């Protein structure tokens, strides 16, 4: 079997056997010369290219390469292709492609298969448009030949090829019944694509295909997978990174009903058995001692103080992340230098579906089938192939609907453990983390201490900006986990420091990496989340010192950046910025993440006796370039604002003696319904290429709320979360 055939056969099994939730009335068509035997292609379906297959019954099947984490890409990506194909959307079905990076990888990622960084629409937009236009051209050419008319005389209507002068129409399905794609597919260039004014689907808010399943409890997540003959597993993990089990007292665990076996893993002890509740109870009954490791005595409270001292000590240089002009001399020459300090805590993803995976290693150990929800199917397959020392072609991944990710599911250690356990047990194993496991073995947004120095000239204009971030490096952490050397810079921690929309002639952003052995990862909004908090609060401090309005100072710095200015003006208008309020204060923030721009205004009040903070309103505006699904962009932004409110009000992971101190939603309190402000989002779709839109509400919240507290009380809060204790303490001081 050649490689293409393997991929196609694998994918066909994916659809039939595996991800039932993803199999939306899936009838996977023969892949013709791109995959399965050509013989199957007779009498249609028409495999127009690797992305799209048209069946004689008019069904159009489009590959959807991104994981559906809740962000809506599973709908948005096929929609882009359907637009250029001029498809009747009601006839479109989505399919999960084979995990073939050459064909389906995201070009924004060097063709890796990964659903992170809000890169799906951004990366696939042009390739999918070209693929759609190419498939349309295949149809037109086939009809032109059949009817013996010049192709230029043909046009399309949704799923119809039209020859106006002879008043003939033929459905795409009818074309598929006789046509085959040519050996060499037609070349399509960007100039051949539709003008945006002709869009029927892009920008028109097509309902998401996953929603009907999700309101009936019919979407199958990894947690819902059941495989014949499977057993369950729970794992007691090392409390800190790098610890391995030394002594294991399993006597009590063995006596628990349903427990059948106990197996040591590299970084944990697994309890296997016939029930979820039995294996979980067995895990809780284990007594294990752990080998020492770097993070074993980490104390986050002590470390944060140390981080702040390091941040202030400018003689300790960090890794340069972004640089404009020459900040050192500019600070020396400045009329005034202002300094600001900010701190943020480790935060936990709290995706509603605790991490879990099901794995079935074949008896000979030469192949494996996986059921998982992952943000990195490509890297997962490579990792498992390496683990079992088998070819990646023998790793069959059934990607499931994903119950929240926010960055956490780009690391796949739970799948690795499930594979090791299946191999050891000789059976399919479903490994489930409890919420406590998920939290205490969390990989957090790194804690940061930040120090910014700004130089102002005699007129109060900012001429120098030096931003220092002291934190773990997420990129170094994940590289080390894969046995790689750390990269020079860490964009996960440092995004949000280059502030390209602010015209400051001399800028420097440095990352002082403090590797303390903490488990870390990307968290929704990545570095922009904690960095925009510091940047935007500090800008307000400068505004205050120079007698400027917080709105005016931003517009001034954004001179020549009309997209940014439009957003700032929009939220000013939405919030009626200049109107005096009684008992509430307004604060503004702006952010840029991977070319997407957003602005927000928060309105807050404080109960002075208790220190309780209430956010009443949040107005936001976002420019993600061309908005493919504007309503979904608004929903994502709204969701991001509500998500982020939790780490502004309460969420905080603390670590003592290497052990995470929080364990469930009782002591790690995420946003609840009673916390939410009235959120209004305006999506400003512009004629720029689409960028991302899944995370951009997040970075606005901390700074807008912090600035609103300042405007209300004159108090500058420098550390997240703005807990009741912190607010009360600040008010009392």
């Amino acid at each position, binding site marked *: 079997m050649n490689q293409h055939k393997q991929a196609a056969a694998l994918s066909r099994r994916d659809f039939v056997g595996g991800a039932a939730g993803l199999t939306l009335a899936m009838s996977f068509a023969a892949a013709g010369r791109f995959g399965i035997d050509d013989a199957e292609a007779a009498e249609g379906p028409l495999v127009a290219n690797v992305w799209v297959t048209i069946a004689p019954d008019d069904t159009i099947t489009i590959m959807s390469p991104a994981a559906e*984490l*809740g*962000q*809506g890409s599973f709908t948005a990506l096929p929609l882009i292709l359907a637009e250029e194909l001029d498809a009747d959307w009601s006839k479109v079905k989505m399919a999960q492609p084979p995990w073939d990076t050459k064909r389906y990888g995201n070009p924004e990622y060097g063709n890796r298969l990964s659903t992170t960084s809000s890169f799906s629409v951004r990366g696939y937009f042009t390739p999918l448009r070209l693929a759609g236009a190419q498939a349309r051209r295949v149809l037109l050419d086939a009809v032109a030949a059949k009817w013996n008319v010049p192709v230029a005389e043909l046009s399309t209507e949704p799923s119809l090829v039209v020859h106006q002068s002879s008043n003939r129409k033929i459905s795409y399905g009818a074309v598929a019944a006789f046509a085959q794609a040519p050996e060499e597919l037609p070349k399509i260039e960007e100039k051949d694509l539709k003008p945006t004014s002709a869009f029927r689907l892009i920008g028109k808010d097509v*309902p*998401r295909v*996953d*929603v*009907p*399943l*999700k*309101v*009936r*409890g019919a*979407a*199958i*997540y990894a*947690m*819902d997978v*059941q495989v014949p003959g499977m057993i369950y597993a729970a794992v007691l993990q090392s409390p800190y990174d790098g610890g391995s089990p030394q002594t294991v007292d399993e006597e009590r665990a063995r006596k628990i*009903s349903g427990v059948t076996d106990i197996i040591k893993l590299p970084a944990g002890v697994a309890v296997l058995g016939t*029930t*979820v*509740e039995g294996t*979980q109870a067995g895990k809780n009954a284990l007594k294990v001692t752990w080998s020492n490791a770097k993070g074993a005595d980490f104390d986050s409270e002590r470390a944060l103080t140390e981080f702040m001292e390091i941040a202030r000590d400018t003689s300790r240089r960090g890794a340069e992340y972004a640089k404009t002009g020459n900040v050192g001399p500019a600070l020396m020459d400045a009329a005034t230098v202002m300094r600001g300090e900010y701190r943020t805590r480790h935060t936990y*993803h*709290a*995706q*509603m*579906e*605790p991490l879990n995976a099901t794995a079935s290693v074949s008896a000979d150990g030469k192949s494996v089938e996986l059921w998982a929800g992952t943000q990195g199917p490509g890297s997962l397959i490579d990792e498992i192939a390496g683990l079992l020392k088998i070819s990646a072609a023998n790793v069959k991944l059934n990607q499931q*609907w994903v*119950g*929240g990710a*926010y960055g956490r599911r780009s690391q796949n250690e739970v799948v690795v453990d499930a594979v090791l356990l299946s191999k050891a047990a000789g059976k399919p194993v479903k490994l*489930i983390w*409890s*919420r*406590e496991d998920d939290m205490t073995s969390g990989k957090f947004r790194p804690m940061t201490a930040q120090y910014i120095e700004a130089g102002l000239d005699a007129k109060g204009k900012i001429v120098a900006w030096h931003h220092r971030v002291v934190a773990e490096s997420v990129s170094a952490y994940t590289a080390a986990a894969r046995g790689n050397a750390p990269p020079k810079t860490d964009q996960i921690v440092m995004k949000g420091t280059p502030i390209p929309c602010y015209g400051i002639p001399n800028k420097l952003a440095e990352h002082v990496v403090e590797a303390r052995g903490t488990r870390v990862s990307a968290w929704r909004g990545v570095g922009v989340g904690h960095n925009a908090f510091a940047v935007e609060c500090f800008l307000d401090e400068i505004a205050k010192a120079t007698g400027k309005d917080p709105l005016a100072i931003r517009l001034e710095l954004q001179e020549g950046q009309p997209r940014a200015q439009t957003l700032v003006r929009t939220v000013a208008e939405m919030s009626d910025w200049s109107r005096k309020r009684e008992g509430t204060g307004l604060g503004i923030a702006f952010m840029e993440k991977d070319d997407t721009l957003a602005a927000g205004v928060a309105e807050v009040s404080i109960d002075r006796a208790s220190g309780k903070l209430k956010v009443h309103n949040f107005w936001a505006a976002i420019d993600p370039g061309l908005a493919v699904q504007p*309503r*979904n962009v608004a*929903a*994502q932004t*709204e*969701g*991001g*604002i*509500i*998500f982020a409110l939790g780490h502004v009000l309460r969420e905080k992971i603390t670590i003592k003696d290497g052990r995470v101190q929080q364990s*469930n*939603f*009782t002591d790690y309190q*995420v*946003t*609840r*319904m*009673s916390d*939410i402000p*009235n*959120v209004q989002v305006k999506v400003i779709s512009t004629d720029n290429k689409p960028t991302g839109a899944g995370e951009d509400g997040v970075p606005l919240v901390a700074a807008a709320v912090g600035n609103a507290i300042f405007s209300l009380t004159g108090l500058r809060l420098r550390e997240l979360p703005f807990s009741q204790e912190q607010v009360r303490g600040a008010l009392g001081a």
Partner: protein
Amino acid sequence: MVAFTVNGQKQEAGVDGETPLLWVLREHLKMTGTKFGCGIAACGACTVHIDGAPVRSCITPVSMVEGRSVTTIEGLSADGSHPLQKAWITEQVPQCGYCQSGQIMQAAALLARNKNPSREQIVEQMDGNICRCGTYQKIIAAIQRAAREG
């Protein structure tokens, strides 16, 4: 052996009476619409109805439902036509969707006893159900829509 009714069908579960109803529903009866989120009744993802009242199935021993009637998301309507399910689609509420079965079951119990709840009553009823994607505002809108449109 515990005998009870799920979505109108008689069921018998040959498990220890202490087994949480959640795992009986999900792993034994293979009805996976009811979700595991926290295991301590702190998130609401596992919400089902027992004799019409919303309960957290993750902390409910199956022995407690002996002879009683359990409704899960799969039984809320035969075909997704409950007013809340329709409103959830119209408002495009779900994002990752994992919490939404619990949200809908919790909201259904509210509408069953209060046909026209105020915003405050909705928030009070729904505050135990976490949605990490941040769809709360849409959930409120969908409950109000279902109340309006029945």
